[in-house]
């Protein structure tokens, strides 16, 4: 057994080693590409170890390798180590796979970076992969929380990779602070739970939960706090606003962190502790409803975005909420299943979008069009990813999505189920809007970068500087198909998407509930309807996009403003922070300083009043001494 845990540990430590080497050996890091090779080599080894570990834990096998940490008062407060079982090793494989592919892809994508910047990028990448694996394999809440914060840090560092750009720096801060708001909840939840049960250890907690030994009083508050952490990390309403802005980072980063791995940590956490959440059905109901609502909100927002990465970002929010809804319905395995398939095809979509951006030098859909002729391979893999996301049979997202729909229905959540069906329709629509606009529609206007200014409002402006900063404003240099380092990972993911889809079409895993027979036709039908609408609107132009938008007037206008949620946050933030600062300022100026000023004024006037006592004549003092002595004598005698 020990050997199996060691494999998982090796996967973790390879990335840690790569990070330490790159972090300590500054000359190596500044060389750029050699640093990248170190990181990629570690990632490849890590993937191998992860796959072997996954095969070893395919059944019920569980291995734990823990070391004592934080000894306190004769007992151990916490341990560090790995907890490898079927779920965690599967997640490990996903992380290792996407991390490796993204690192290879980045070699081709970030060719215009300077060598030190590239070295810095790969250092962060290694740190991220290590932290994420530490999170996935965490045997207790404490290690999980530490890694949770570490991935948040890496997210901050990588979103702000182009920190010279104000938008990127601001987005990095926004992501950090907003997720931090949820993290505080998570920390409170963990500590409360520890006070409640006396352990951080997941396995021990599980035993307690299975024996009904966890006191239920107050448990709902704790699970809700833990859920808050997931709300921040997995971008649930109302903390979803950081994820679209996080697209300011390099596209491979978006693929790895903000699509496939880190943002799914919240879902993973809830899946990992589903036995705990099962004790508090009220909280689960909140999870389901918030999930379904966020899914719809994000899907609507995705329909109106003109920035290809923002469409994908909102799509990620929407899909994460899908998983959340399934977990809330009580079937976390369905959510986890979708997490895995989504990780593969969303990474594919992001990397595909990266290839498009690399060729067009713009994020804006209005600058694209007819790209299938110039980028035939990218078009194919992107379409595969879109079909997977839409949930078309034989592609990766099909069965997992249907399982989620079945789970919400089986859990008795009819409301969320209806919302999710609408989302399935919208998902297919917005994905194929992108596909038809970018790849199959008529060609873009010739002077693409110049067109962004007039291209349409804010999204276009963001798109313009969201592309390559190196020559974003330069001449319209239109490249062709990307090189092998970028195409390779794309094809690997595309083949995987299809393979997973085909495999699970024939081998149904037991979801633990039965779905009604009409579910599959409805799910597929809504997806096909979405694709059809997108085709009719953006390919055939049979339906005018403007009149379609007009048909949903208020919703369309609201969605363009992101339903005022970002503005609301900004206002609330300004109001809270500025109001609080003003209050504190007033207290400092008038209470703290006031007290001191009054005290000093008193001292001055008291001194002024008392100086007249000092005559300066020696005899007066003698007189005072004599009288004082006399008083003391009399007091001693008669007092």
């Amino acid at each position, binding site marked *: 057994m020990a050997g199996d845990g060691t494999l998982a540990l090796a996967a973790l430590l390879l990335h840690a080693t790569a990070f330490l080497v790159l972090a300590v050996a500054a000359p190596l890091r500044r060389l750029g590409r050699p640093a990248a090779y170190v990181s990629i080599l570690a990632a490849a080894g890590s993937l191998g170890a992860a796959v072997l570990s996954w095969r070893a834990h395919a059944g019920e096998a569980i291995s734990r390798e823990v070391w004592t940490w934080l000894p306190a008062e004769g007992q151990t407060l916490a341990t560090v180590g790995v907890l490898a079982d079927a779920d965690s090793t599967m997640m490990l494989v996903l992380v290792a796979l996407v991390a490796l592919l993204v690192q290879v892809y980045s070699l081709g994508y970030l060719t215009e970076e300077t060598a030190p910047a590239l070295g810095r990028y790969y250092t962060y990448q290694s740190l991220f992969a290590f932290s994420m694996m530490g999170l996935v394999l965490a045997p207790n809440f404490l290690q999980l929380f530490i890694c949770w914060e570490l991935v948040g840090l890496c997210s901050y560092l990588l979103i702000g990779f182009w920190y010279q750009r104000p938008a990127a720096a601001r987005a990095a801060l926004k992501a950090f602070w907003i997720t931090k708001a949820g993290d505080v909840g998570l920390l409170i939840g963990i500590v409360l739970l520890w006070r409640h049960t006396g352990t951080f250890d997941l396995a021990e907690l599980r035993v307690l939960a299975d024996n009904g030994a966890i006191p239920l009083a107050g448990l709902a508050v704790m699970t809700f706090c833990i859920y808050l952490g997931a709300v921040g990390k997995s971008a649930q309403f109302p903390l979803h606003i950081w994820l679209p802005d996080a697209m300011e980072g390099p596209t491979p980063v978006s693929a790895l962190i903000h699509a496939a791995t880190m943002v799914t940590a919240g879902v993973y956490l809830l899946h990992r502790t589903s036995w705990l959440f099962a004790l508090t059905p009220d909280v689960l109901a909140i999870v389901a409803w918030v999930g379904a609502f966020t899914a719809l909100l994000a899907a609507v927002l995705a329909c109106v975005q003109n920035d290809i990465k923002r469409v994908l970002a909102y799509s990620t929010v929407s899909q994460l909420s899908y998983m959340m809804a399934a977990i809330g319905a009580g079937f976390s395995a369905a959510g986890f299943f979708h997490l895995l398939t989504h990780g593969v095809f969303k990474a594919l979509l992001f990397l595909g979008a990266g290839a498009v951006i690399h060729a067009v030098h713009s994020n804006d859909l209005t600058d694209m069009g007819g790209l299938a002729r110039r980028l035939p391979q990218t078009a194919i893999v992107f379409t595969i990813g879109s079909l997977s996301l839409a949930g078309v049979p034989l592609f990766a997202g099909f069965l997992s999505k249907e399982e989620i729909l079945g789970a919400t229905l089986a859990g008795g959540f009819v409301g969320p189920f209806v919302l999710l069906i609408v989302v399935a329709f919208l998902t297919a629509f917005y994905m194929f809007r992108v596909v038809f606009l970018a790849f199959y529609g008529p060609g873009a206007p010739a002077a693409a970068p110049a067109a962004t200014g007039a291209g349409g409002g804010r999204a276009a402006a963001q798109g313009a500087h969201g592309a390559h900063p190196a020559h974003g404003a330069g001449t319209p240099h239109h490249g062709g198909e990307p090189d092998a380092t970028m195409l390779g990972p794309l094809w690997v993911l595309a083949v995987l998407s299809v393979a997973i889809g085909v495999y699970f079409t024939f081998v149904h895993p037991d979801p633990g509930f039965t779905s009604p027979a009409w579910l599959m036709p409805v799910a597929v039908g809504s997806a096909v309807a979405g694709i059809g609408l997108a085709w009719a609107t953006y390919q055939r132009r049979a339906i005018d996009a403007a009149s379609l938008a007009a048909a949903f007037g208020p919703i369309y206008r609201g969605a363009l403003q992101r339903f005022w949620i970002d503005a609301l946050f900004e206002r609330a933030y300004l109001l809270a922070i500025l109001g609080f600062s003003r209050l504190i300022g007033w207290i400092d100026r008038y209470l703290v300083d006031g007290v001191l000023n009054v005290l000093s004024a008193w001292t001055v006037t008291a001194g002024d009043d*008392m*100086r*007249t*006592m*000092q*005559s*300066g*004549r*020696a*005899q007066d003092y*003698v*007189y005072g001494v*004599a009288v004082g002595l006399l008083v003391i004598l009399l007091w001693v005698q008669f007092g």
Partner: protein
Amino acid sequence: MGLQAYLTLAAVVFCIGLFGVMTRRNTIGILLGIELMLNSVNINLVAFARYLGDVTGMVFAVFTICITVAEAAVGLAIVILLFRIRRTVTADQLDLLRG
């Protein structure tokens, strides 16, 4: 005569000295008052030494006399310097430390 008489004498001398210190305007007069007060203490010491049959008090009296001499020397030197600088030895006019 008993101890009482000596103590009374000492108290009287002390009070005379104190009165002198507080009322004399001339600094030399003040110094004389201080001498009287110190000597009243000497009377006390010697009286108790004699009464209790313990020589310690007498030894202390000798010490006090020595110190008194030194004090007088320093005090008079200060008065002479004062006179040189201020051209007066009247205590009322020496109020440099007035607040």
